[in-house]
């Protein structure tokens, strides 16, 4: 009672030879199918390398094309040869020339000996399949595919489309329930003989000749008819990427493969010397009997597929540059923007940093320079504080800043007069929390001793800028969390409003605010607004001060 290997080879003959020798040295017969596209000269040279080895034989050659019946035909021929030539073979293992045994054959034989009647073949009903890339699942069985997908893609697509439109449906042969699964299986002699000697084999073969990728469905479906016990998984470790092509293993995967406890892996890069050297070493110590456990490898490759498909959110680089209209997140982390607070409260930045943690910058978009926290001139990632550099691509200044400081909460001030191009970007970013006290910019003007002429033009400029900012915040498509008050509203119960903001940023906690930073004396502020009005600037963003009790003097709010 023994185990036989059927090997489909089309390239990397040196490696295929190594593996075939390895298996035959362990006493396992090997039938090799060499692709009919390989020249006679190459084929003969390859065959000659096994002269004198009675356990390695070759089957009739077929020209194999990916995704077509020819692959199943080649498998049938080689398997038939195996069953006829080696009557004591109980299990047949289908492998390719780029497969590599990861554990000594003895361990695999023991494993199969313990499960003598089990067929190891991944076989999943078409309703459950999630891995197909082309989206053709049920249609593989109900449409016809006479054109090559690789060489005549357009014709393939058009003919498929045409059949869909015409509503063509092939009839499934009697007694066939369509299943799909990995091409690489290990089946018992009984099951294989039942499939290959079935009375309706001709009809079945004719049906599968027009099925799309029959090598993933022929044995997978027919095994269901005859098998006594199916383990629906492949003993060959093979992972597929987003394009549906197999992931390749290299020398640096050696530990990952060792720990997987799988019996065979594919596909191996032909020049992975260390892998072949390690796993084909005849002196390699046998390990404990363990169940295959590809979990870790699964995770590595699943992560790679995610990286290619979804990428890292909020990152812009030479390999990831989402087109305008991209629906995903535009920044990598949440951040907070405060407008007007620093005008109303003295030392607001220090107070805020104590309450919410992280880094609290000044006005990052200040016309003179980016006011990084702690008066820094350069920030993480060597981000410069130069206003010209920043304003060259103001949105990417922000995305860069957030990317380089990820893991640390970022907060900054933004006021009228700061680079306007980012306003809309932030307003449409769900990662942004934007808190605005509109009209607070007038307080420093009010407290300044500047001549009224200057104040008037400055007030007009700032109000215009702020109106544009407020418009962006109230536009359609705003997804940022926006908290907006007029100055008049805010000063009524500032503690409560700050509490809400802090709760939102840090998450609600048991600690209540007990103090807020000092505010200047605003008793003369309505008068100042009236003066502005008299000068011809109509203050509209501050709210209605007529009904507002104003904070008196420099007293601390709180208990």
């Amino acid at each position, binding site marked *: 009672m023994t185990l036989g290997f059927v090997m489909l080879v089309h390239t990397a003959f040196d490696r295929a030879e190594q593996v075939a020798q390895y298996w035959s040295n362990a006493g396992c017969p090997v039938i090799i199918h060499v692709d009919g596209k390989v020249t006679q000269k190459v084929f003969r040279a390859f065959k000659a390398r096994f002269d004198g080895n009675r356990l390695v034989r070759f089957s009739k050659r077929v020209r194999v094309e990916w995704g077509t019946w020819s692959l199943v035909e080649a498998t049938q021929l080689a398997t038939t040869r195996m069953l006829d030539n080696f009557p004591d073979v109980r299990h047949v293992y289908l492998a390719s020339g780029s497969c590599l045994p990861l554990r000594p054959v003895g361990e695999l034989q023991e494993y199969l000996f313990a499960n003598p009647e089990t067929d190891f073949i991944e076989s999943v009903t078409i309703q459950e399949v999630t891995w197909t890339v082309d989206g053709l699942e049920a249609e593989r069985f109900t449409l016809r595919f006479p054109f090559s997908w690789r060489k005549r893609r357009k014709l393939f697509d058009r003919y498929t489309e045409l059949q869909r439109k015409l509503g063509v449906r092939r009839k499934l042969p009697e007694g066939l329930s369509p299943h799909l699964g990995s091409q690489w299986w290990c089946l018992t002699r009984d099951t294989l003989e039942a499939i290959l000697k079935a009375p309706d084999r001709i009809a079945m073969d004719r049906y599968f000749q027009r099925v799309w990728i029959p090598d993933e469905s022929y044995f997978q479906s027919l095994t269901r008819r005859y098998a006594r016990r199916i383990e629906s998984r492949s003993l060959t470790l093979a992972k597929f*990427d987003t394009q549906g092509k197999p992931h390749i293993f290299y020398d640096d995967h050696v530990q990952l493969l060792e720990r997987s406890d799988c019996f065979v892996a594919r596909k191996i890069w032909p020049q992975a010397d260390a892998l072949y050297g390690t796993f084909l070493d005849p002196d390699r110590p046998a390990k404990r009997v363990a169940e295959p456990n590809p979990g870790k490898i699964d995770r590595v490759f699943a992560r790679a597929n995610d990286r*290619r498909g*979804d990428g890292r959110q909020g990152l812009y680089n030479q390999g990831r*540059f*989402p087109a305008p209209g991209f629906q995903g997140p535009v920044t990598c982390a949440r951040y907070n923007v405060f407008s007007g607070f620093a005008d109303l409260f003295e030392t607001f930045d220090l107070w805020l940093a104590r309450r919410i943690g992280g880094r609290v910058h000044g006005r990052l978009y200040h016309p003179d320079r980016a006011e990084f926290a702690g008066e820094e001139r*350069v920030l*993480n990632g060597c981000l410069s504080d130069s206003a010209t*550099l920043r304003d*060259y691509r103001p949105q990417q200044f922000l995305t860069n800043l957030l990317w*380089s400081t990820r893991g640390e909460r970022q907060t900054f001030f933004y006021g009228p007069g700061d680079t306007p191009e980012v306003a809309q970007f932030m307003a449409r970013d769900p990662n942004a929390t934007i808190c605005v006290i509109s009209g607070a910019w007038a307080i420093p003007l009010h407290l300044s001793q500047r001549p009224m002429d200057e104040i008037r033009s400055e007030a007009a400029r700032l109000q215009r800028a702020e109106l544009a900012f407020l418009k962006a915040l109230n536009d359609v498509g705003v997804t940022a969390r926006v908290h907006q008050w007029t100055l008049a509203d805010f000063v009524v119960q500032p503690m409560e409003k700050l509490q809400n903001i802090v709760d939102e940023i840090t998450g609600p906690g048991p600690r209540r605010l007990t103090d807020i930073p000092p505010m200047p004396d605003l008793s003369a502020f309505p008068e100042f607004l009236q003066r502005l009005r008299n000068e011809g600037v109509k203050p509209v963003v501050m709210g209605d001060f007529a009904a507002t009790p104003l904070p008196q003097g420099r007293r601390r709010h709180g208990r």
Partner: protein
Amino acid sequence: MGLLSSYRMRLRRKRWRARAYLRRRELTCVENRTGQIAKPDLLLFCTVRNERTRLPYFFDYYRRLGINHFLFVDNGSEDGTREYLARQPDASVWTTTASYNRSAFGVDWLNWLQRQYGARHWCLTVDVDEFFVYPFCDTRPLRALTDWLDASQIRSFGAMLLDMYPKGPIARHTYVEGQNPFEIAAWFDSGNYVIEKNPGLGNLWIQGGVRARKFFADRPYQAPALNKIPLVKWTSDYVYVSSTHALLPRGLNQVYDVDGGEKATGVLLHAKFLNMFVDRAEEEAARGEHYRAGDEYKTYADELDPRANLWCKWSERYINWRQLEILGLISKGNWA
């Protein structure tokens, strides 16, 4: 992409091909060993001028990566560069004294050589101070990457320039022949790059890094482009149109994903800021053979005090490609 714009691009490609064809006469063959090139060989194309000290390490690095044949255009070197190159058993060398500027900074010459010898090969086009780093480059040879690209039906591979600089004055350390330049210029800027799509050719236009931070802070628009596509599975009708920043046909420039995913990319570590650079900047500024008549070099010559320090406290010290991946400068894509 409309028919008209496609046609315009086609004309543009033809024009670059014609230029390469005309300038082929400027090249004189010094040593032609291209007969050695075998079917699957990896080729490297490079234009040099007076770079003798840099060459030994350059050859070392790229031979280790698995380059099989080097094709050089020597632009009138006077320091033994040409002779050194001609002695290398795996290099073919052409020489010219024609204008670097008028040959579109060597593009015409290399386009010609690529058309002659590059077809059906993976071609890496770099300068002598550019060192290609790609995911897994410490454990997998370049051939592993190109095999994977072939299997994935990808024809071109992006690798932006990453300017490297020393800590302290540039002229403090003297580069010794054969030395790994990144022992001296070990630092880089990790997170200050800005990107825009070039609407015509579809490539990304990347600027930033230490050069924008130190030399172009007041006119960022003029900061040098850092985007490059140095690795291409060549076909005889491909052309580089502006250094290795962009190619035609345009599809080759699509080395980035537009739906949020990440395509696999690498970097070219740029060993520009070494002690040789200080003298070189003055010379190149006077020669005016570089982009915008060496305008960039004038900037360096004017502003580059030999005592200048490009380093800042947020500079990253280069470790390996994994570090670049974590920093977000490169990506593995779905290569694992």
